[in-house]
């Protein structure tokens, strides 16, 4: 039950992040090839909820 609860909370958290992303929208970036590390893109999304 505890585990179930935990995964329920996790799922809720995930859906919150997803809806935050939808609410915050996106930024459309036009960079050189191989010039933006994926980890940095992911960090930006995690901090702002925005997608590329």
């Amino acid at each position, binding site marked *: 039950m505890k585990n179930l609860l935990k995964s329920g909370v996790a799922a809720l958290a995930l859906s919150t992040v997803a809806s935050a992303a939808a609410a915050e929208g*996106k930024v*459309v*970036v*036009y*960079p*050189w090839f191989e010039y933006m*590390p994926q980890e940095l893109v992911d*960090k*930006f999304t995690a901090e*702002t909820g925005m997608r590329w």
Partner: protein
Amino acid sequence: MIDTYDSNEAMLASLKAGGMGTYDVAVPGDYMVKIMAGAGLLDTMAEGELANKGNIAAEWADPNFDPGRQHSIPYQWGSTSFAVNRDVYTGDINNTDILFNPPAELQGKINVLDSQGEVMALAALHMDIPQCSTDRDQLKALNAMLLGAKANWVSFNSDTAKEVLVSGDAAAGMIYDGFSAKAREEGANVEYAFPTQGYIAWMDNVVLLNDAPNRENALKFMDFLLVPENVAQLTNWTRYAAGVEGVAPLLDEALRTLPEANPHEGAGQAVFIDACDEEVQAVYDTIWTNLKK
């Protein structure tokens, strides 16, 4: 999947050919920021719109290509010259002859960047003529020199510039300093040259495009790219250099002594690419198009 480009000129052409209104930000080099601003492609950021603008390093806060940083923020800076595989050639490499008048060991084994501004500027340094020269004799000589040099080149490519050095498909190649460092770190026995005639210095910048579909978000993204921790993460990955204060203590120890970022004493000057005026640019476009045929 995001769109990318492999040269400043390719990016400009795609934006002019209908790309405006699609993207929020792009990452042009110094001279291209000036050209884009002149062409009316860049939006202006009012004072106070970027919360982290004060983080821009003093030496990059008011560049001649974007006075007052009205349209752009620093992304990364570095240099462009060429790298040589030392298993193939052991002689002196600090001379632009390596690209334009190569020794026998390197003939037919040279990759050149598919990047008009950089090739033209390095060729001008090689010939000791001014960039954007309008002198007919100098232009004729430049054109002839490039066509002659091309006979010794195996490929024109930017996005595989590192891979061809690592694979050995090219024994020498025009390349950016960080890319050359990555080639070396991936096992290629390459040395980055600092030619006595000089080499290219550049700064890439994030610009706010006119008609940006998500202008507010673009500003947040630019602010994100002015936070020292984020810029350090970027710089440790690119192996170039940052234009933001507070980044240095967060960089990999190896970056401090990177051979590709530390010119030797005999190195020529690092020279930024000039933005030619439109009429002159058309002449250089013709030379370039002809060279690429």
